[in-house]
């Protein structure tokens, strides 16, 4: 097994009204390929911030960040965008589907940036929606779906390009227990069967149980908590 995510002495601060808000300080973390890592910690401890850095949608103030073989702290904006589209899938707490697009069209979105033909895209989208169990809901709009179904569409959108890494920020935070369990089972399957490396932020101890490793983040420091 090789290390796929290397966070090396990374610091991150935000600036608000000329005031520096330090969030992460000299944080070091390695994630092995095929791991399912759960990140827990109190609200405001910097979980989302860390996840965003790993996923390349934000940049560290200091430190090195090598993800999927690329030193992403050194990429420019468009390089980072391209890197994201090829290496990472994202799942958010509030699904963030485009409301005017059907389930099918939402999942197709990331493929529009690839060179795939229309029929190839169709094959990928249908296969992915079948994996998440929504083969019969392809032409539904987000508001015609339940929360759990919406999140499954969002997961399909995240994995349709077959990225090596999946990041999920409280993916069950807005769901009832049954739906949450379905989502977690799906994530486990993606990890085991499809070999996705997953980093998941969660509040829910049940969710954390499904992971292969659990880390606690507290005020920007990592507290290891092996299971």
């Amino acid at each position, binding site marked *: 097994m090789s290390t796929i995510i290397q966070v090396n002495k990374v610091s991150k601060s935000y600036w608000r009204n000329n005031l520096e808000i330090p969030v992460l300080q000299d944080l070091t973390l390695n994630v092995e390929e095929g791991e399912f890592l759960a990140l827990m910690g109190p609200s405001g401890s910097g979980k989302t911030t860390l996840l965003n850095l790993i996923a390349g*949608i934000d940049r560290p103030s200091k430190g090195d960040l090598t993800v999927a073989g690329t030193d992403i702290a050194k990429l420019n904006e468009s390089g980072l965008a391209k890197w994201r589209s090829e290496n990472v899938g*994202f799942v*958010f707490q509030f699904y963030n589907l*485009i409301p*005017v*697009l059907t389930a099918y069209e939402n999942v197709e979105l990331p493929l529009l940036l690839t060179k795939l033909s229309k029929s190839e895209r169709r094959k990928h989208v249908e296969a992915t929606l079948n994996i998440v169990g929504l083969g019969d809901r392809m032409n539904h709009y987000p508001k015609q779906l339940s929360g759990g179904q919406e999140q499954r569409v969002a997961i399909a959108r995240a994995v349709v390009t077959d990225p090596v890494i999946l990041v999920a920020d409280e993916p069950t935070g807005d769901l009832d227990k049954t739906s949450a369990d379905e989502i977690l089972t799906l994530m486990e399957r993606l990890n085991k069967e499809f070999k996705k490396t997953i980093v998941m932020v969660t509040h829910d101890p049940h969710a954390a149980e499904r992971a292969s490793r659990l880390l606690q983040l507290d005020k920007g420091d990592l507290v290891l908590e092996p299971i």
Partner: protein
Amino acid sequence: MKVFKLIFKNALRHKLRTTLTIFGIAIAVIAFGLLRTVVTIWDSSVDAAGADRLITRQAVSFIFPLPVAYKTKIEAVPGVESVCGAVWFGGTYKDKSNFFARVAMDDNFFELYPEFIVSEEDFNRYKNERNGCIVGKSIADQYNFKVGDIIVLDGDIFPGRWEFVVSGIYLPQNKNTDGTQMLFHYDYLNETIKQNTPGRGDQIFWYIIKIEDIKNSAEISEQIDALFKNSTAETKTETEKAFAQSFVSASGAIITAMNFMSFAIIGIIMLVLANTMVMSARERTREYAVFKTLGFSAIHLTGLILGESMLIACIGGGIGISLLYPIVSGFEQVMPKGFFPFFFIEPITIILAVSSALLIGILAAVFPIHKALNTKIVDGFRFVG
């Protein structure tokens, strides 16, 4: 293809808001087109003036007459080809609202104005009828004047009941030519005045002068005015175009205001569309963050926002322009005939309306695009409407 579909779906998210914006743009384009039409008509009535003709009038104002004897003196000036005297008759035809120009002219008028086309038959009849008149095609159609009809005018500048017989109808040469004039013999007017009010006869309001070479218009004008320097009726000679301009300058301020307003309307509607676009873009802040996260570039987002703005502007502009034609012709029906000699939509008006609509679409998208591109992904996700 996908992008167009998304742009279309985005535009239809708030159907009421989009519909109102589209109608706002349509109404603005119509108002713009109407105002521009009036302005261009006004300008082209000045443009229609002949370039190779000079007008001599009383130096102080064209409401004061000149002696009829000036005609032969002006004819003697080198470079002058022919001279025609004219008197503004005024008067009323049946009702004050029936406004069209009634002018007494020397018979050589139609030589000086080849753009007023009269058949030989009509002109011969005119020459032989002492109280004959020739009317423009536009008013002939409007009042149903036919050769042989009697037109009775109630005089004001020259009081009394005046009877004319229609000898002929002239056709305007092109659409810039005034087809709304009623022209009759100066001799008939002058002789009748001399009979009724001796002392008011032998007067001319303005002379129309055809010159051999337009390049000499300045010198010839000077020479004519020099002839009558220090007389009781000094003259002012200028090109017909300059004369037409001074004639309309009184209303020029209104035209300037209309000109300004036509562009102000475009500015206002741009703000309306910009407001719609800003609201839409604001509501979609998270979605733009999603697009960026997935790897969509600045060009994609720009296309999405600009496309929607252009779509709305083009539909609104298209509706406005297609309604402009029926509205302008409806306007023409209700306007008193002769108030504007001609009423049509200049191509330049359409070009301006179309480019305004496009410009509105572009400018309205600038701010939302700037905002969308400069919002960091993490801030986009943290945004709460």
